[in-house]
C-alpha cells in the first residue's frame, strides 16, 4: 500500500496516511489529484481506477470517501475488504461512527489505523484484538498502573 486518504464529498481532507516517503509538495499534488478523480466518478461505477502505476481503490461510506492506493501486484478486491475492516473498527470504537467523529477525534482515528496497518501491510487480522489494544491504551488508569508496576 502506498497511501490512504479520507476526504469528504466537498474534497476536505479528514485523514492522510502515507506509507512511503514523499515531499510535501508531492503529497499535496496527490491529494488534489485523488479528490478530483474520485469525486468525478459516477454513482454506480466500479471502485477501481488506474493512476500512473498504481491502482486506486475507493469506497464511499456516508459522507466520507476512503481512498487507498496499492501497487500493481496487489489484490484490489482484498483492498476493498481492508477499507471495510477499517470502517468496522472505527464503528466499533466510536459506536455508529459518522464523519463528525473522525473530524473531532482525528488523532484517535490515526491510533486505530496504526493498530490495524503498519508500513503498508496488515498488522492484525482480528477485529477483537485491535479493538482491545485501542481500548487498553486509552485507559489512563491502566497505563498509570502499568507504568508504576514496571518502574518498581
Amino acid at each position, binding site marked *: 500500500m502506498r497511501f490512504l486518504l479520507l476526504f469528504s464529498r466537498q474534497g476536505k481532507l479528514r485523514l492522510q496516511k502515507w506509507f512511503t516517503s514523499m515531499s510535501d509538495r508531492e503529497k499535496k499534488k496527490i491529494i488534489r489529484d485523488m479528490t478530483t478523480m474520485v469525486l468525478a466518478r459516477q454513482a454506480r461505477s*466500479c471502485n*477501481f481506477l488506474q493512476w500512473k502505476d498504481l491502482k486506486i481503490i475507493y469506497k464511499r461510506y456516508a459522507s466520507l470517501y476512503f481512498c487507498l492506493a496499492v501497487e500493481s501486484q496487489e489484490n484490489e478486491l482484498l483492498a476493498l*475488504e481492508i477499507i471495510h475492516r477499517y470502517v468496522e473498527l472505527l464503528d466499533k470504537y466510536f459506536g455508529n461512527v459518522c464523519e463528525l467523529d473522525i473530524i473531532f477525534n482525528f*488523532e484517535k482515528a490515526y491510533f486505530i489505523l496504526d493498530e490495524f496497518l503498519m*508500513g503498508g501491510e*496488515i498488522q492484525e487480522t482480528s*477485529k477483537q484484538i485491535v479493538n482491545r489494544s485501542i481500548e487498553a*491504551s486509552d485507559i489512563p488508569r491502566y497505563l498509570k498502573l502499568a*507504568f508504576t508496576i514496571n518502574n518498581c
Partner: protein
Amino acid sequence: MPAPIRLRELIRTIRTARTQAEEREMIQKECAAIRSSFREEDNTYRCRNVAKLLYMHMLGYPAHFGQLECLKLIASQKFTDKRIGYLGAMLLLDERQDVHLLMTNCIKNDLNHSTQYVQGLALCTLGCMGSSEMCRDLAGEVEKLLKTSNSYLRKKVTLCAVHVIRKVPELMEMFLPATKNLLSEKNHGVLHTSVVLLTEMCERSPDMLAHFRKLVPQLVRILKNLIMSGYSPEHDVSGISDPFLQVRILRLLRILGKGDDDSSEAMNDILAQVATNTETSKNVGNAILYETVLTIMDIKSESGLRVLAINILGRFLLNNDKNIRYVALTSLLKTVQTDHNAVQRHRSTIVDCLKDLDVSIKRRAMELSFALVNGNNIRGMMKELLYFLDSCDPEFKADCASGVFLAAEKYAPSKRWHIDTIMRVLTTAGSYVRDDSVPNLIQLITNSVEMHAYTVQRLYKALLDDISQQPLVQVASWCIGEYGDLLVSGQCEEEEPIQVTEDEVLDVLEGLLVSNLSTPVTRGYALTAIMKLSTRFTSVNRIKKVVSIYGSSIDVELQQRAVEYNALFKKYDHMRNGFHLSLLMIINFRFFVVLSSFKMVQVCLSCLCVVPILQANDLLDLLGGNDVVPVIQNTVSTKPASAGGELLDLLGDLSLSGIPPMTAYNKNGLKIDFTFERANPNPNIAVITIHASNSTEADMTDFVFQAAVPKTFQLQLLSPSSNVVPALNQGTVTQVIRVLNPQKQQLRMRIKLTYTHKGSAVQDLAEVNNFPPQSWQ
C-alpha cells in the same frame, strides 16, 4: 498566561468560519498563541498544542515549527505525550530533513521500554517512516525484539523488520535466523506478518527464495486448516476464516511455485480445493478466488487447473458486480499472451463488455479486445470495435483509432477491406487520430496500387460530406492531388464510378483553402494538391490563378509554396511536364525537392521552409505520365552540393526582371554581387541572389553570409549553394534572399561575412546602400 484552548474547542471554532479568509485569520491567531506557548517551554500544554497544530496541518496550513516540539513530546515520560509526539513525527517529519535523526535515540529507548504500548509506538513509527540511517542504527534492536514471545509486539516487530529490509536491503541476512520457526505460530496476527516478512525476503533474493521453498508443505497445511476449520468468531468475515491471511499465503505460494515444478505440484491440490470450495456470494470469497486464479496462472500448474482458472475468470465476467468484472478483464489481459486460446473462448462476453456503462470496464474491455484480434476473427471483431469507436467517449477515441489501425495492418484480409476500415475510422473519429497516422496512411495508400481509383473516389465523397476532420481532409487532399486523373476519368472498378469534372474537384480543393475549419497544415496539403493537378488536369489556367492568389497570403508557409509553384509555372513551364518532382528525406524542417528531367542532369533545389507536419515520407509525384525512370539523388543540405550551385546559377542566368545587378561588397579579394528579380505577382517581394567570388589564391572555407534589414522590411534567407568560395574565381557561392517591402521604402541592408582564409578566421560587417531604385520601388 491563560490555558491554551482545547483541541475540540479549536476544531469547533474553526468550523464556524464562513469564509476561507475567516478561517485563515483564526488559524493565524491560534498559531501565534501556540508559538508563544512553545517559546515558553510549557510542558503541561505542549501535547494539546501539538495536537491542534496537527489539525491545522491537515487543513493545509504550514506546521513545521512544531517539529522540534514533537521530538520533545516523544522524549516525555507521559504516554499521552508520547502518543501525540509520535503521531506528529509521522505527519510532520520526513526523512528528507536531518531533524528526524534526532528521534533515533528516543526510539531506541522506547523500543526497550517496559510498557508494550510504548514499545508499540516506537515500532510503529520506525516501521512507517524510518529512514535508511535510522534503520541501520536500530536494526540490531529490531532483531533482538524479534525473539519476543509477546504476540502483540511480535507482529509489530516483524513488520518493522520488513520496513528495514525495504530501506536497507543489505541487512536482510540479519533477520534470517529469526525466521527459523516463523510458521509454527498460532496467533494469526503474528502468522500474517511472518508471511509478509517471508514474501519480502523471497521477492528480494533468489537465494532466500530457494531456501524458503521447503516451507511450501507447511504453508499448504495452514491454508488447508483455514479452509476446513469451522467457524472462528475471531477471524470470520462473511463465513470465511481470515481471508487476509489466506490471500497472503496464496501470494507467497505464487512466488515460491513460480518456475519450480516440485513446489507447483505440491500446491496443485490445495489450489483446486480453494478454487472450488470458496463461497462466491460476497466480495470476500471473490477476493480469495481472484488471488487463487493469479497464483494458478503464474506457477507451473497442470493444464486442467489452468482451464479451471480461466473459467473462473469467465464466470467473473458474467457477475453483476462491476468490480469483479473489472478484475476479470484485468486478469484476462495478463493471461491472454500465454493462454490465448482459452481466453478466446470468452471473446463474446468480453466484446459485450465494450457496451458496459462503466468507464474503467470499457477501457479494459477495449484493451483486451485488441489483444484478442487475430486473422480468424478480424472481420467480426473489427465490426464491434468500429461500432465502439462510433459511440465511445472522446477519451477512448485516440487509443481505439490507433488500435484499429494496428490491427488492420496486421490482419487485413484484403486491401479493399483495409482501406474501407481506414475510411471508417477517419470519418467517425477523424479528429482524434494521431498525427503520425496521416503519413502512414498515405504510405499505405501509395502501396496499394490497384486501389488508387477506389480510394480517391471514396475520399472525395467523404470530403463532400464533411471537411471538419483534419486528418481525413489531409489524406483526401493528398490523394486527390495524386490520383485526380483517375477520379475525373471515372475509372473505378470496385464500385460505381462517380461523374466528377475537373472544375468540381478544384472547387472542393479551393473550398478547403478558404474554409475556417482548415488548419494551416491542411491548407498546405490542399495547395500542393492543386499544384499537382496542374500536370494532370487540363484547366491549368484556373490552377495558375489560384496559386498566384496565394502568393500574397498572410500565412507565410502558404505564401512560400505559392511563390515557388508560381516560379515553376513561369520559369519551367516548358519543362514542367517533364519534371519528376519527388519529395524525399524530410529532415528537421528542411526538405528537398529533387528535380530531374529527361533532358538535363540532376539538379537539386533546396528550400528552407517551416514544414511542421511533413516529417515522414511523402511522395509528391508530379510525373505527368511519362515513362521517365528518374535517378533520384538524396542530398543533405549541409553537404556542399555542387549540383545545387548549378541550379541556382541557372536561376541567375534566366531572365531577370531588367533590374541591373550591383556589387554589394568587394574587399580582401571577396566580391559579392547582387542580382535581382521580382517575385511575381507580388511586387512587394524582391528576390535577390548573391554571388560570392574569391579572387585570392586560397579558398575561403566556412563561408557564412548573414544579412539584416530595417524594421519595416522582412527578410528571408535561403540556404547557400555551398560554404566554400573557391580561389581564383573558379566558382561562386550563391544564395537567395527574399525581402518583403510592403511600405516601399528605400532598401538598405547590413551584411556580415565570416569565413576562414589561409587558416585564420575572418569576419567583416558592411552596409549596403547602393541598391538600384527599381529594386524597391
